[in-house]
């Protein structure tokens, strides 16, 4: 298990080298900054200390709940330009169902419970902080019951 919170860009190929060795299924999710509304970047603020602890705790929970053989979470903070990757999760499991569900679960949690806050940056400078969405809350509530 590996959890990284860093300002630097990350290289998926390097991080995934050897990941999932012995597993039958590896799922990765990568979140990229889209240029919607003419933005040029995002600023991501985090809570140093709490963010790393929360990610570690949820990566561990996902390992147990979905029977993973490995999990990787990397999340950037600071200014991230349009087109760049913000974060990636990778999950490894014996079969595809566990790997898919664990990645989906981790993403729903990251979107609404991980201590990150983001704001849009336009050509003119910082805009508003991005508001939390009901859709992200609803997505997370899917996991309240044990997986089927």
């Amino acid at each position, binding site marked *: 298990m590996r959890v990284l919170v860093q300002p630097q860009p990350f290289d998926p190929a390097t991080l995934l080298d050897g990941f999932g060795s012995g597993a039958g299924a590896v799922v990765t999710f990568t979140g990229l900054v889209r240029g919607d509304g003419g933005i040029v970047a995002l600023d991501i603020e985090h809570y140093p200390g709490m963010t790393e602890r929360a990610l570690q705790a949820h990566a561990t929970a996902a390992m147990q709940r979905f029977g993973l053989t490995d999990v990787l979470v990397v999340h950037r903070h600071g200014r991230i330009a349009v087109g760049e990757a913000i974060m990636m999760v990778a999950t490894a499991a014996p079969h595809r169902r566990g790997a898919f569900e664990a990645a989906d679960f981790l*993403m729903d949690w990251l*979107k609404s419970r*991980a201590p*990150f806050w983001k704001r849009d940056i336009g050509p003119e400078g910082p805009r508003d*902080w991005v508001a*939390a969405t009901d859709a992200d809350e609803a997505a997370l509530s899917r996991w309240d019951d044990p997986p089927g």
Partner: protein
Amino acid sequence: MTLDVLYFAWLRERVGVPRERIDTDAATVRDLAADLAGRDDWHAAALSDLTAVRVAIDQQLADLDAPLTGAREVAFFPPMTGG
């Protein structure tokens, strides 16, 4: 009681500092927010309406009515929007 209080995102911007060390007699997080909101206009702008405010005590998510017994660090922030 001496506490480190941290602010993130728009709460940080309204208060004007990312963290401060304060003395308080507040028993709960909600009492602490009221205490701080009464200190000046900046804190009031951040903490008088707690509808969209989340809190952590010693880096664990907590309720507004959670007691501050033994707490060393309290953080106020908006709902998270990571990923």
